[in-house]
């Protein structure tokens, strides 16, 4: 118990808000094109695949065997992907810039802020971007008639949880990067995860071994949970999906804090 509280004391002064405040001030000078891309990309997928492919595919069996339109099937998956993209963008490119080039974290840690404050503050900023994406996306798919339950509103906080998991983990991973090129490699790894995580086709089409592999990856859990929420039909897996992201987030925050300490307070 005392071990935990001294860990907190050494890593935090409880001033997460100061980091968030700095983030909002910097947003004014932010790169809005990139922000918009992160939002429109999944929407474009939804339009092209949902309506283009949808005509060919017809209907698909979703959670609990419920029959869904193809557009309705992929829309929640695109929302989960959008949450991931926003979080990854913020926690890789932005964090890399601040960590290695602008030396922002070094500055913050030379004040009375602790590494946990910096980690959580930066993650909150990434979440805020995710929150705006999620709001917009939910509004769009609701207007398109692709939501069938009030549960769809819960997609917004869940999108945040997905973003939290990816942001926390992404920040820890970014702390190991030394060159910009390494982030391209990360993108290269995220691409197949996006394509195969039951986003565009149901998981059942893959061989069993491939299915297990996909089920170990985070995006699949996000996609499945979102899909269940969109129609308000839940399987017994729903808790697993939720727990997956809670654990991913907690581990990511701990990992990031430890890395910030190792990098800047050595």
């Amino acid at each position, binding site marked *: 118990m005392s071990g935990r509280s001294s860990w907190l004391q050494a890593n935090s002064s409880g*001033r997460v808000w100061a980091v968030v405040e700095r983030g909002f*001030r910097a947003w004014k000078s932010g790169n809005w094109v990139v922000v918009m891309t992160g939002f429109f990309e999944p929407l474009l997928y939804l339009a092209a695949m949902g309506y283009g492919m949808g005509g060919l595919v017809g209907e698909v069996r979703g959670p609990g065997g419920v029959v869904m339109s193809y557009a309705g099937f992929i829309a929640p998956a695109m929302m989960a992907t959008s949450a991931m993209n926003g979080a990854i963008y913020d926690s890789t490119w932005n964090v890399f810039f601040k960590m290695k080039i602008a030396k922002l974290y*070094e500055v913050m840690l030379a004040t009375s802020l*602790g590494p946990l404050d910096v980690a959580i503050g930066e993650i909150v900023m990434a979440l805020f971007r995710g929150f705006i994406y999620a709001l917009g996306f939910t509004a769009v798919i609701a207007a398109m008639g692709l939501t069938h339950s009030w549960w769809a509103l819960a997609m917004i906080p869940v999108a945040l949880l997905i973003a939290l998991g990816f942001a926390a983990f992404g920040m820890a991973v970014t702390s190991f990067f030394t060159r910009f090129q390494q982030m391209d490699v990360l993108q290269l790894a995220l691409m197949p995860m996006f394509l195969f995580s039951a986003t565009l086709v149901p998981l059942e089409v893959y061989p069993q071994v491939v299915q297990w592999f996909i089920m170990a990856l985070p995006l699949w859990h996000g996609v499945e949970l979102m899909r269940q929420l969109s129609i308000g039909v839940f399987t017994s897996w729903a808790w697993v999906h939720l727990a997956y992201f809670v654990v991913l987030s907690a581990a990511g925050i701990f990992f990031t804090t430890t890395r910030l300490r190792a990098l*800047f307070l050595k």
Partner: protein
Amino acid sequence: MPVIDAHDVVKTYGEVTAVDHVSFAVRSGESFGLLGPNGAGKSTTMRMIGGSTVRSGGSLTVAGLDPQTQGPQVRAMLGVVPQQDNLDTELTVRENLMVYGRYFGLPMSYVRPKTDELIAFAQLQDKANAKVDELSGGMKRRLTIARGLINEPKVLLLDEPTTGLDPQARHILWDRLFRLKEQGVTLVVTTHFMDEAEQLCDRLIVIDHGKIVAEGSPADLIQQYSSREVVELRFGSGRNAGVVDQLQPYAQRIEILPDRVLLYADDGEELLDQVRRAGLIPVTSLVRRSSLEDVFLRLTGRSLIE
């Protein structure tokens, strides 16, 4: 009780010993210097005081607290001006100050007027709403110093405050630092410029290869390790070394540099006369007072700036 108390502080990076059993104490209100050439271990020492580098050995306290275990508390009492400016390029001049104050948990009602005061102190009124990238080197440095003052620190750590600045910018900056000194702020300054050390420091340690080689006030050090005056003679390349034997009888001590010979004496003009009378006619000659540069040369056999 000293504000900063360092005992046998050691820092090693693998095989390299950056700081080698360094001990010193800084009194409240004093302006304390760390003078030494590049790579002497000055920045490493500064980072250990701020708790952003972990010591390999020894003890160090700031106002009785160990920066390593009580980092946030220690840093709340310090103003840190690192060697490289690390201002927030995504923010304006004003925001840089305000946001930094918020990192210390200071309330807006304090930070707002304090920011205005510091903008005036840094003479950046015209640039208050400009982005950092629009500032000159000297302006950035003044802003970094102003930023370090936002929490009204007990101690301001300045790592090479004027390196890279032109002479005019340096003088403006020194003037600002004098004001702080007058206000009773404890300054810890590292520099490899002897004129800066002489201007700013009440007391200093001379460091070389991570070790303290001398300690005292600039005047004491000069008195102890050098003569009152120095005569610099140039006989033209190649000839400098040749005339040394003939110069030997006239000076208390002689240093031969690649481009000139330094003769140490209490009365430089008289020495120069003697040399001339002996028929040794230099191409150029200069009589000046001894400086910390001469102290360093005496102690290490090298000059501060290679």
